[in-house]
């Protein structure tokens, strides 16, 4: 399976590619000359210690952090300067790490906000129930009153409402108990299998990330420090980079 995808990556256009991307906040550069390519249907884990620029990579792809140089392409077309609304409409889903829910809105309204109209809500939410059945009973509940694990599942469920072709996920497993992490991993693998979704996950949880990813990279001070395809020795190799 992996070989097939890698072969495809060699012959087909990457779903997402970053070429010599540099970005940052104000005068501070966070990402420097970063290049990576993710094939269609691939799950790619971007790992690294805190403060290495992982979240900034996702925010740069989405246009929240200005691109200083380089190019970001989605399905071969440059997305520099493209609005978030256009990106999401073209099939990009995002599950942010922080302040990722409208806490005072209901679960239903949080899910509705993933769509641009209520037409199609019933069908989309049924698909999400397939991954996270508990949401069916909680639609009227205020999102802020869900447990931490339930909130994370709602965040992911909302990102899946539009059946994205590219899903960007920021440290979704942080602070979660193993059973919830397992449910999230199962949902992501199922979404990739059924929808061909390409997934870029930013993670520090090695067992989770390497358990679902095909390829990985370690980010250090805004640059790729090491990268490869997931294999038996990957965990030990990545661990070396993440040691404090």
């Amino acid at each position, binding site marked *: 399976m992996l070989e097939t995808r890698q072969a495809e990556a060699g012959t087909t256009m990457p779903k997402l590619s970053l070429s010599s991307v540099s970005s940052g906040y104000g005068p501070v550069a966070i990402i420097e000359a970063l290049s990576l390519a993710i094939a269609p249907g691939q799950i790619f884990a971007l790992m690294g210690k805190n403060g290495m620029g992982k979240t900034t990579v996702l925010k740069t792809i*989405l246009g*929240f952090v200005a691109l200083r140089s380089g190019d970001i392409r989605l399905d071969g077309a440059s997305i520099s300067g493209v*609005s*978030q*609304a256009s*990106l*999401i*409409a073209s099939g990009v889903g*995002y599950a*942010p790490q922080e*302040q*990722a*829910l*409208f*806490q*005072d*809105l209901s679960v239903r*309204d949080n899910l*509705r*906000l*993933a769509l*641009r*109209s*209520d037409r199609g809500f019933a069908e989309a939410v049924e698909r999400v129930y397939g991954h996270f059945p508990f949401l069916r009973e909680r639609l009227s509940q205020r999102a802020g009153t869900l447990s931490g694990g339930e909130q994370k599942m709602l965040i992911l469920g*909302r990102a899946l409402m539009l059946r994205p072709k590219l899903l960007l996920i920021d440290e979704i497993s942080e602070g979660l108990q193993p059973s919830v992490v397992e449910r999230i991993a199962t949902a992501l693998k199922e979404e990739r299998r059924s929808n061909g979704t390409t997934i870029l996950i930013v993670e520090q949880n090695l067992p989770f990330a390497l358990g679902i990813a095909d390829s990985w990279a370690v980010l250090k001070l805004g640059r790729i420090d090491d990268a490869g395809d997931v294999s038996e020795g990957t965990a030990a190799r990545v661990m070396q980079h993440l040691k404090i």
Partner: protein
Amino acid sequence: MTLLLDMVTTAAILFIVAAGLLAIFGVLKIINFAHGAWLTIGAYCAVATAGLGLNPWAALPIAFAVGAILGGITEQVIVRPLYRRPLDAILATWGLGIVIGQLITLWFGRDVQFTPNLLSGTVDVFGVGYSLYRLFAVAAALVIGLAFTFLLEGTRLGLSAQAVIMNETLARALGIDTARVRLATFMVGTGLAALAGVLLTPLTSVDPNMGVAWLIGSFMLVMVAGSSFSTLAIACLVFGGAQVLVSTFVSPIFGGITVAVLCALVLRISPKGFARA
């Protein structure tokens, strides 16, 4: 009884006048200091409607449309570049208000204008004859409040506006076109301000500076209410009621400054006002 009715109807009038300002402040987090000018635009729509011989009630939809269209142009040309500079936005909208006042003076002159009554006469309320129009103002305030509640909680635009109010970055990350939400909100707010201008015409004289007198009170009420319409209604009842009491038992001159003074006191004690006190 008359005193109680005066308190309620004054609160209703304050709510009508401040609602448009609150709509804009709640979503856009800027104070539209040209709000008074939009009240004036609305009032002059009533003057123009009368001048054209149309039904005086036709001024309401006409004023809303004119106010919303001019508001849309203002949002795109003047306000949009200033969202990240709220102090500059205050200055720009203040300046715009002055320009609008001058343009109205050029077009209509400085003289006080008169408009036909929308409703005249009195009605018996528990044995007391009371102005039918002031009672209508209460109904109008209720309709505006309910319409806003429906707009905010019953429509996609309202849901998107709530998302923008709560967390604009997340709203953008979900693909919500926040620029469109801002434009629509500004248009609704300015349309409502112009509508309020028409509703004020039977109660106040119409002149190019009529809106200025209402601006400070509205501004203070919105500061106290935060971004909540229900809190605005409470603030209008409390401070409008106080205004009537002071006007009746102390002096109408002090009554005129009661809302601003009491709001300032509340903000001094609780800087976040009623809404998040």
